């Protein structure tokens, strides 16, 4: 009884309980036959659910959008109405960001009493995928939130939206399945959640709001992530109590972003060990706070961190701009430091010399030979010439290309370094100022590499042939230049075909000569299913690439994957997932479908988009190039002037781009 009276006194503070609200309750309760079955808990629970619904009804609004794109990523976005929840009396409504992924021209809100308003988007929480709207109204009824500590797994959870019927909320009933899901951000429910109630309220039987329903995914971060889980019994809601903490900031128009530290760990899975830092991003908050590789994070804001996952749980609920107290263990010392989280880590910018290293293996002089010096590059300005041999970099002797690239990664654009070069048995010291890495479009005419003659044994197969992986029935094709021999390292291009057409004959015909000229081996995998490549093919494609690298002399700096049209996303996924394997990605008439990972010096990835004369995705492709360049991925836009996908001219450009993958 104590609880009852307390609850009643809380409710007195509410100002608006309209006549309509009571009327709806009456309708719900006295629908003929609503209470038809016998005595017992089920009937009482049904009543309680309907009463709770009626109680929160005035706070649930309908949201409709006008205009906007109909495809976001690969997801066809519906045009149906969605829901929102009143958080402030004076017209502030919180809803799921999912409802605006289509970038609508206009947003309309219908309140529970049937009034329609034009709404303004005030602010967005990009971490928890929420959007705050404002309408001109000052007598709305906000929902009361349940304190996070009062939520327990197993409690009733009722999911409400206002999508189907403007007069009653639509409802789905379940329980709280878990707390602190998705890096501590969300509670999980088995009530059915889908676009019909994203943005709506998850309430308890008392008519208090547990959270705002949103799609979320533990694997992906983009705005439509988690929608594929709709109606599956796995739904998420952001606790309203957490939202209330930041709602004033959002009312002031401040967008919120996830707070980042800028540290990386060896393994990030759920079974990972203690949080030992293996990477600190330059110029990140962690870097400024003095954290270094080898430090182990043991505590954040008083919460003990036993494994990497604990750290993610704590930081997932934090926003950029917040300051956290980090305790680390360095050797046997415990160090405490305050770190202010950031919304964006400065991407690693590759510095460049402007050279193509020579690939011949039978050199007389130690060092790295130059095959080509890009005109106008800093190398050219410093006087480097093709045929020169670099013997040392800032007084450090260099033997291989990778020596130079790892030394380069310690410098920034604008730094001046000194190269020691051997030219015609003279030794020269040349100062050179590092420049921005070229994006790779409008490459100058790069002469084909000089391929040295050599011998190969009979067992090595060349030409075009089919192959299977050991223990696997699926065939892939390989195209090896006729004059291949293992003393000459080759580039490797993996082709992933669009749905329904392997385009094998076309590829072989159009690439055969140019691949041979540029020292390239082509491999084509076939999708297991005619409808195209799926996630299950990823591992297979990687194994195929590894088979080739094991059986042929492949230069690890020139391994690339190519996709066209609807296989573009698959090729992109391979390149983003197997960062240690792929150094290049070619996407033909296929814009970027998901956000890129971080560009980092250990696994450089160069990207090329090919766009045809009449491509319908030109605009999206140009946008993709912009996004990737912003993230410091050297990204080329290659124009195909012919209508055919593999015209001679464009294959020549792609082959040159691939040939220049190992540029420094």
């Amino acid at each position, binding site marked *: 009884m104590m609880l009852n009276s307390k609850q009643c006194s809380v409710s007195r503070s509410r100002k608006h309980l309209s006549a309509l609200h009571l009327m709806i309750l009456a309708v719900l309760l006295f629908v003929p036959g609503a209470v038809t079955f016998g005595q017992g808990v089920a009937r009482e629970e049904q009543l309680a659910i309907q009463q709770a619904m009626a109680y929160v009804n005035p706070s649930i609004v309908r949201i409709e959008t006008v*205009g906007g794109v109909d495809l976001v990523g690969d997801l066809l976005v519906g045009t149906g109405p969605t829901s929102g929840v009143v958080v402030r009396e004076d017209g502030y409504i919180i809803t799921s960001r999912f409802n605006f992924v289509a970038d609508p021209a206009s947003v309309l809100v219908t309140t529970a009493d049937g009034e329609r308003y034009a709404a303004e988007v005030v602010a967005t929480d990009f971490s928890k995928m929420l959007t705050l709207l404002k309408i001109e109204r000052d007598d709305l009824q906000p929902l009361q939130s349940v304190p996070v500590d009062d939520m327990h797994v197993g409690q009733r959870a009722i999911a409400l939206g206002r999508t189907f019927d403007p007069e009653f909320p*639509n409802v789905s009933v379940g329980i709280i399945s878990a707390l602190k899901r998705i890096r501590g951000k969300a509670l999980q429910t088995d009530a059915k959640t889908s676009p019909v109630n994203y943005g709506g309220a998850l309430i308890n039987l008392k008519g208090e709001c547990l959270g705002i329903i949103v799609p979320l995914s533990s694997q992906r971060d983009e705005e439509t992530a988690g929608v594929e889980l709709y109606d599956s019994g796995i739904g998420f809601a952001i606790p309203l109590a957490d939202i209330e903490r930041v709602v004033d900031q959002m009312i002031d128009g401040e967008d919120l972003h996830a707070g980042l530290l800028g540290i990386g760990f060896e393994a990030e899975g759920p079974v990972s060990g203690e949080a030992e830092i293996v990477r600190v991003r330059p110029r990140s908050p962690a870097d400024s706070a003095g954290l270094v590789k080898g430090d182990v994070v043991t505590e954040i804001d008083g919460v003990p961190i036993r494994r990497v996952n604990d750290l993610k749980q704590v930081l997932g609920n934090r926003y950029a701009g917040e300051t956290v107290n980090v305790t680390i263990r360095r050797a046997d010392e415990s160090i405490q430091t305050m770190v202010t989280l950031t919304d964006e880590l400065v991407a690693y910018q590759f510095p460049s010399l402007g050279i193509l290293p020579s690939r011949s293996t039978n050199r007389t002089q130690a060092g790295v030979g130059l095959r080509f010096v890009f005109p106008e590059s800093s190398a050219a300005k410093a006087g480097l010439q093709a045929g020169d041999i670099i013997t040392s970099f800032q007084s450090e002797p260099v033997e291989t290309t990778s020596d130079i690239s790892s030394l380069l990664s310690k410098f920034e654009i604008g730094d001046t370094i000194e190269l020691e070069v051997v030219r015609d048995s003279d030794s020269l010291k040349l100062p050179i100022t590092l420049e921005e890495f070229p994006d790779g479009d409008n490459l100058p005419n790069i002469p084909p590499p000089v391929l040295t003659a050599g011998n190969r044994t009979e067992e090595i197969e060349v030409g075009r042939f089919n192959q299977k992986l050991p223990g696997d029935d699926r065939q892939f094709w390989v195209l090896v230049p006729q004059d291949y021999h293992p003393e000459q390292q080759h580039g490797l291009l993996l082709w992933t075909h669009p749905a329904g057409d392997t385009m094998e004959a076309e590829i072989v015909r159009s690439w055969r000569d140019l691949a041979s000229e540029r020292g390239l081996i082509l491999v084509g995998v076939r999708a297991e299913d005619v409808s195209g490549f799926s996630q299950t093919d990823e591992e297979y494609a990687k194994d195929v690439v590894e088979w080739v690298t094991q059986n042929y002399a492949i230069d690890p700096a020139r391994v690339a994957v190519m996709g066209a049209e609807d296989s573009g996303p698959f090729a992109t996924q391979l390149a983003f997932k197997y960062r240690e394997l792929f150094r290049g990605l070619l996407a033909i008439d296929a814009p970027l479908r998901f956000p890129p990972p971080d560009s980092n010096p250990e696994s450089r990835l160069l990207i090329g988009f090919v766009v045809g004369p009449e491509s319908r995705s030109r605009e999206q492709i140009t946008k993709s190039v912009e996004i990737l360049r912003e993230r410091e991925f050297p990204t080329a836009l290659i124009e195909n002037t012919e209508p055919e996908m593999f015209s001679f001219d464009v294959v020549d450009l792609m082959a040159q781009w691939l040939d220049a993958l190992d540029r420094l």
Partner: protein
Amino acid sequence: MTVSRRFLICSIVSLAMTLTTGAASQAESFSNAVDQVQPKVVKLFGAGGLKNLANYGTGVLVSPDGHIATVWNHLLDSDVVTVVLHDGRRFFGKVVGTDSKVDLAIIKIEAEDLPFFNISDTAEVGPGALILAFSNVFKVATGDEPVSVMQGVVSAKTKLAARRGRYRASYDGDVYLVDAVTNNPGAAGGVLTTADGKLLGMLGRELKGTNNTWLNYAIPFSVLEKSINDIVAGRFSRTDDLLAVADETESSGFQSIDFGFLLVPDVVARTPAYVDSVIEETEAAKLGLQPDDLIVFANGELVHSIQTLQGVFQRLLPGDDLQLIVRRNNELVTFTFEVPRKQ
């Protein structure tokens, strides 16, 4: 007012408090209902089996003499339909009548004294009401096994706004939407009941709603009742042609220019319906419509794009009212046009 509010909250709380006991009685109440309903639901096997067209489905007995109501779909596109009763008895049924307006077909088997639902004795419930759904979803039940039961609540009672692939569904009347995932292959023709087994509706096809998510819906028997009774009594037996179901609305051919304004060019899939220009001395000009007004509602329908607006124009008849609500800056402004006679 204050008193009633306080009463409401207290009653909600006290109800919530009583829910912690007596789970056993709930199970009992469901099992009684299940025992009553299951013998009246039958398994159907017919045409299909290719690609994703199921060759199985569900039906409900609506007379003691073997009339079975089901959803009228491809399954029935064969000479006979195999009907398997809850006790394993097998019959061959024939379609005796259909009504495409409500997606209904009646099959008749030669049998007597069967358990059946009296379709005029149905319940009406609102959102939040507990429901049970019975169907042979995914063909799990075979032989004498009874059909599967699911439990959930009514999500909403509303008009069906759905499509099948790219096409609009033919039925657009009242439906119950439920929060259980009921509408999967084989479920069409099953029944939705209250938690104590009172008839609510017939489970429908697999359709996607306007949010591009699958709908779990049932058509209330009150909607089906007349057609079922007519077909059973032999008064009605139109056999609809599957292909003849088409959009029957005649085009009246109205365009925005008939009202004195022009829209921006319809260039992308969802071009918002912005007014491009208003022609002088027309009704639009007199009413005060302005260029850059964004039309957001037309006769109550949300205008997603120019295409939706054109759909509304197509349905206008001379003499009707055309009400447009436009967004101008942050305000909504309403205009009411009279639809002119066309020359």
